[in-house]
């Protein structure tokens, strides 16, 4: 099997284009189906690596600190993400516990670690050990990270609880807010270009 040089296929309608370098701020769209084919990337692997490391630090904060505290009749109750997962497990909603753990903890963590690993080497134009596996896993895990949905969910829960209880926001919710911002920046980045940005080694 051979590979042909600089072609680009629209994933959404199978139209073939010749690839060309995009200038600052340019976005290439498919003429047939209007899907985004390629966009100019302002951030190089080094900047992306820095962002991933930031996201990891924030992610750790978001997971170790309580998210919110409720006060009622002098009693205070707070919870972390894991407190929530364990509680769902014990309340006979194991399915929900597993879904929550996967989409809010394991998949985001896996995504950040793999991206960090791949980018760390990509800064020097190298392919990380296990590059191929990491890239394929990133592709599979991609749609299953839901931290930003959780932030909105936490907001709704706070408003619902606010009617009956005193609500005290904890550092965890702010960390989640920051994480959402970082995720939004990442959403515009096409990791596929790392395939072209890195040199294949004989290994």
């Amino acid at each position, binding site marked *: 099997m051979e590979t042909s040089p600089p072609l680009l296929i629209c994933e959404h309608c199978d139209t073939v284009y010749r690839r060309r370098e995009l200038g600052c701020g340019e976005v290439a769209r498919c003429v047939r*189906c209007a899907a985004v084919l390629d966009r100019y990337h302002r951030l190089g692997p080094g900047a992306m690596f820095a962002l991933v490391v930031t996201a990891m630090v924030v992610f750790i904060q978001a997971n170790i600190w309580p998210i919110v505290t409720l006060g009622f009749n002098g009693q205070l109750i707070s919870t972390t993400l894991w407190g929530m997962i364990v509680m769902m497990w014990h309340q006979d909603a194991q399915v929900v516990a597993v879904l929550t753990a996967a989409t809010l903890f394991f998949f985001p963590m896996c995504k950040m670690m793999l991206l960090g690993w791949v980018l760390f080497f990509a800064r020097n134009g190298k392919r990380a050990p296990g590059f191929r596996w990491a890239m394929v896993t990133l592709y599979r895990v991609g749609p299953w990270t839901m931290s930003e949905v959780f932030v909105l969910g936490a907001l709704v829960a706070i408003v619902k609880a606010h009617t009956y209880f005193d609500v005290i926001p904890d550092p965890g919710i702010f960390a989640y807010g920051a994480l959402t911002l970082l995720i939004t920046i990442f959403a515009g980045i096409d990791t596929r270009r790392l395939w072209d940005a890195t040199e294949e080694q004989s290994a």
Partner: protein
Amino acid sequence: MSDVLPRASELGVIGCHVCGLVCKDIGVDGAHCPRCHSALHYRKAASYSRTWALLIAAFVLYIPANVLPIMRTVSLGDVDDNTILSGVVELWVKGSPDLAIIVFTASIMVPMLKFFALVTLLWSSHRSSTWARQQRSKLYRLVELIGYWSMLDVFVVALLTALVQFGLLSRVEPLPGVIFFGLTVVLTMFASMSFDPRLIWDGRESDDR
């Protein structure tokens, strides 16, 4: 027609789903991308039947997800069960119409839109319809983009359950509805992933817009 916009299938090449590499179609089943070693398909395997199956399964689960209560609030022996819809109504009545609209959109509008959109896409593509192809492509991308926001209600219930644990005074418990709802969201996500948007453009007629 196709001189202007050639399609991969006409040129005998396949785009790898995973890494985007353009590969020559050697006409062998089970070919793999030379760069990322993922299986190469001309179109996603059994796209119609898989998507239909997942969509029907999701719809079957969507019924108990809406009919059964998702959350129980117990305060001083007073038991109050909420379904998804009654939760939205409660938010509205208690003075947060903006959040009520968000939850209504995420939990009711988005799943309904997904069912409706995917059925439309499956049916029209199967008939090789040339009707509004570009709009249908956009509809598919919209479904992909907003699909996972439906998990919102599941997280709300989970967080409230973990927080509202004041013994006899006040307590929140998850009820089976939320499990069905979570599974519905996962299944609809799988359904939209297994649909191949290129099928929209695979017609018998010309490829002109």
